[in-house]
């Protein structure tokens, strides 16, 4: 029996990239279903998706990347998917690596597979300052959990059913990647990485402008610490979502 696999594509003002992203998925990862979560884009994203007949969910209020991705996990949970992966709508992520990531997840050794740019260091590797930030989070997560994650900010993360159920209930509103990695490790899950190449975004702007970088660093650093301290305990949540 083949597994139901879902690609979650968060999209905010990605009119210039969304077609290429979806076509890339159809071509290179045909065994996957996909769902676009349009976070109230002000551009033509919604109209393009409608015209092309893409599977698209439109958030009625702008809610942030975390809330958009979580809507995807909620969708995955409701429709009984065995595995879900986030692929950003800006076309940075290469669908050619998805099968390989799914194979790694199917081995059952890890519950989250991250597509990492920094194992083989090929493709688009982000600018100097950002790489410094990424390195800091690698070090910070190592100090907090003892786990080595070379690309903790990678949006390309594949998870199985348990984690889908958990994420559907508990997911940060913004900048979720490093924080949720710590949360999962804290809950006793393991995380693996697969080398991937990423592309330069084709058009539009990144969600993290230079002015927000400082806020990002501070917020995510504290968020990781909080996740390590196990704050989710206070919400009465456990890992056993299934």
């Amino acid at each position: 029996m083949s597994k139901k696999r879902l690609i979650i594509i968060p999209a905010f003002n990605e009119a210039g990239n969304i077609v290429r992203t979806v076509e890339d998925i159809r071509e290179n990862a045909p065994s996957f279903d996909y769902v676009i979560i349009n976070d109230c884009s002000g551009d033509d994203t919604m109209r393009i998706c409608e015209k092309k007949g893409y599977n698209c969910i439109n958030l009625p209020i702008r809610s942030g990347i975390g809330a958009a991705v979580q809507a995807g996990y909620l969708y995955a949970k409701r429709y009984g998917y065995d595995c879900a992966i986030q692929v950003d709508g800006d076309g940075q992520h290469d669908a050619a690596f998805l099968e390989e990531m799914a194979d790694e997840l199917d081995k059952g050794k890890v519950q989250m597979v991250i597509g990492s740019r920094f194992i083989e260091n090929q493709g688009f590797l982000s600018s100097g300052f950002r790489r410094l930030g990424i390195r800091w989070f690698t070090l910070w997560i190592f100090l907090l959990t003892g786990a080595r994650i070379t690309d903790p900010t990678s949006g390309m993360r594949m998870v199985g059913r348990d984690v889908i159920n958990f994420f559907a209930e508990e997911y940060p509103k913004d900048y979720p990647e490093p924080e949720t990695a710590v949360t999962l490790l804290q809950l006793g899950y393991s995380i693996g990485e697969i080398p991937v190449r990423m592309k330069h975004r084709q058009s539009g702007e990144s969600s993290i402008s230079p002015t927000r970088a400082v806020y990002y660093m501070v917020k995510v650093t504290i968020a990781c610490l909080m996740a390590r301290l196990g704050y989710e305990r206070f919400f009465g949540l456990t890992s056993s979502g299934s």
Partner: protein
Amino acid sequence: MSPRLQIIIAIVTAAAFFYIGDKVRTRVIELKYALVWFLLALVLFIMDLAPTLLERAADLLGVTLPINMLTLLGFGFVLIILYSFTIVLTNENRRTKRLTQEIALLNKRIGQLENALEEAGIEVEKPVSETADPRPGHKIKV
């Protein structure tokens, strides 16, 4: 503390008490969130009209001027109020987020339903405009 200041503070706190009371009566403010405001006005009112109580409290904490004790009390209360509202805000955020997601998923299902009905030859009346507004209520210009 001069009698004049005492009278001013008494009048202001009493007025605030009844003003908020009236807002609760007319359902502008939820009683649950008004309680801490009532407490603030009440404590300031009592301390203001009971100088010995205020002076003893000031002495106890090493505050030289009784009026500063009053300010400190008021400030402390305001911090508590802000803290409670931060919690309320966080909860509201979580709820709004989930509602937004649920509505989006429901919209999707409705769309599928409409399409299926149309394919079956059943006429469905659709809303004229479906474009969502990222900041509801802000678009309206008079």
